[in-house]
């Protein structure tokens, strides 16, 4: 199987429909097919083993994705925000490659071409006779993980995995001709890949916003009559704050659906967003790079039901990531691998055709029966809604007792003076690790550390009380909204 088929089907069924808009430029599905063929021919001509992409989102990104597929080589989008030495180290790992980038000095084995030149060459044609290779288990995409815990790993996504996800979740030409999705996630993020594949198969025009800013996002959504959007939580938070400052609801009549994911959504943000976007369908999507994007969904009906309910068990589902896709199996296991029941917290395992779960040099991480350890902690309620409880790596081990940061963060966040907080392990001579909390105060508010400690002591066990509380101006996030707990731990340890 080959993901190139998705573009062939779209270009055959709707050649003149606009596929993608970036700035003043657009490509139809027919144009995109021609350009992808040209890109494949160019990659083959250069003897590339990979087609890499190092730039902000642009028309060249989807052209490179499908071009690589037709050439039978992996597409490797690289994080342009990394430092020059970090980028150089990643490039060494992808040679020989054709690299789409602007003004980067490159190691031996890499042929660099500027995005504009690449797009022009690709659109000029070529590769008309190429047939997308169908080899078993061919690799479509390699994504370097964000490396928040060490050297970035190269996650492998095979054509079969990505096609299983798209065919299982997207209706071919399911979008109306006037629909449009705004793409704000960067091309090196799994959501950036799935946005291209889903939109092409659904026939939904993509409008790229290369550099996110709340005002620019609102402007673009209004001007292009955007119907669908995906945001990481920090982006939605900034939009909510931007609207708050203007004291108004969003005036975006065409916007119908807003999906979010990629990190934990603070409850006050989603509650406020639902009030600011009253007619909009909200969907929470939970997924990992290793699972080819979304594996669980909190759908619009569940959002509305939770908001309207007085039943705490229903109401709290607004903080869940919903239920597994029909094509995904999910279980919770304890540290010894024993399967747990509803309400019992443990480690989240998933299984399904879209689950890739492998890295270069490390092989498959799935067990004998195909279960992949997400390394996320969580539990499911009686109706199968999944509640996440942080990464397994973030658990604080205090004198042999496992403490999950999430439950303490929930208590601290309930204090009106606390805008945001993060709980991490801090070195402790007696217990090995202790509990530390970094707290961002709400504007114009103040609270003593002792009051917050008393709050936690009153609601949880004494072992959960933060022994160290630091008041900070902001928490460190990466550009896709992932909280950098490592940075906070280092600040406590310093």
């Amino acid at each position, binding site marked *: *199987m080959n993901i190139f*088929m998705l573009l*062939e*089907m779209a270009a*055959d*069924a709707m050649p003149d429909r606009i596929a993608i808009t970036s700035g003043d430029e657009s490509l139809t599905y027919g144009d995109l097919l021609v350009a992808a063929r040209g890109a494949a021919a160019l990659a083959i001509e250069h003897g590339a083993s990979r087609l890499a992409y190092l730039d902000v989102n642009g028309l060249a990104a989807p052209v490179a994705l499908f071009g690589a597929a037709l050439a039978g080589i992996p597409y490797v989008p690289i994080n342009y925000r990394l430092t020059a030495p970090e980028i150089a180290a990643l490039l060494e790992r992808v040679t020989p490659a054709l690299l789409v980038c602007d003004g980067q000095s490159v190691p031996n084995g890499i042929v660099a071409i500027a995005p504009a030149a690449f797009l022009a060459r690709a659109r000029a044609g070529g590769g008309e006779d190429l047939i997308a290779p*169908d080899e*078993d288990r061919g690799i479509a995409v390699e994504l370097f993980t964000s490396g928040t815990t060490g050297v970035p790993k190269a996650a492998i996504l095979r054509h*079969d995995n990505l096609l299983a996800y798209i*065919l*299982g*979740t*997207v*209706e*071919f*030409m*399911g979008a109306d001709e006037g629909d449009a*999705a705004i793409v704000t996630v960067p091309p090196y993020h799994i*959501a950036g890949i*799935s*946005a291209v*594949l*889903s*939109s092409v*198969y*659904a026939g*939904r025009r993509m409008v790229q916003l290369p550099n996110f800013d709340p005002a620019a996002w609102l402007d673009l959504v209004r001007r292009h009559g955007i119907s*669908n959007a*995906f945001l990481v939580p920090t982006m939605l938070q900034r939009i909510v704050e931007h609207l708050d400052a203007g004291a108004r609801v969003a005036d975006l009549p065409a916007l119908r*659906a807003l*999906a979010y*994911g990629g990190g934990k959504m603070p409850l006050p943000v989603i509650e406020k967003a639902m009030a600011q976007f009253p007619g909009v*369908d909200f*969907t929470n*999507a939970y*997924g990992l790079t290793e699972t080819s*994007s*979304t594996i669980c*969904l909190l*759908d*619009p009906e569940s959002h509305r039901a939770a908001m309207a309910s007085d039943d705490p068990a229903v109401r709290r589902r607004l903080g869940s990531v919903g239920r597994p*896709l*029909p094509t995904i199996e999910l279980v919770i296991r304890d540290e010894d691998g024993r399967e747990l029941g509803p309400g019992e917290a443990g480690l989240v395992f998933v299984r399904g055709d879209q689950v890739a779960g492998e890295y270069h040099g490390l092989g498959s991480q799935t067990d004998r029966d195909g279960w992949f350890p997400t390394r996320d902690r969580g539990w499911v309620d009686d109706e199968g809604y999944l509640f996440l409880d942080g990464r397994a790596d973030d658990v604080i081990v205090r004198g042999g007792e496992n403490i999950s940061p999430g439950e303490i963060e929930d208590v601290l966040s309930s204090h009106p003076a606390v805008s945001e907080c993060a709980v991490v392990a801090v070195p402790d001579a007696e217990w090995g690790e202790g509990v530390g909390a970094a707290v961002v105060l709400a504007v114009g508010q103040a609270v003593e550390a002792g009051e917050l400690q008393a709050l936690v002591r009153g609601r949880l066990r004494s072992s959960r009380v933060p022994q160290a509380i630091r008041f900070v101006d902001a928490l460190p996030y990466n550009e896709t909204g992932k909280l950098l707990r490592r940075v906070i731990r280092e600040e406590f340890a310093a």
Partner: protein
Amino acid sequence: MATQYKAGVKLKSAVCDTQIMVLRVPAEPLDIRIGGAPALAGDEAGTGAALDPALAGGSLTGKRYTDAQETMEFLCTKGGEGTITVAGYDIGIKQAKALPSSD
């Protein structure tokens, strides 16, 4: 003629424009037909068969076709006039719950 297929194989109709890709099959030989004529592999030439008017219900691009027990599944990559059939099975369009877009 029954053949043992595997996932990923592409087949085309001998009598119309229909093309399909095998997504899932049971471990047994299948007699897959489109418009009444045996489906052809990608490089196979047609035998001059004609579309059976009784099997001209058509196939739709992007629809997945499956049997009642969902033991097999085919993706129609190009629609045509012929009906997709498998001897011994009742093949129809897979009814899947529409999911909200999450990308």
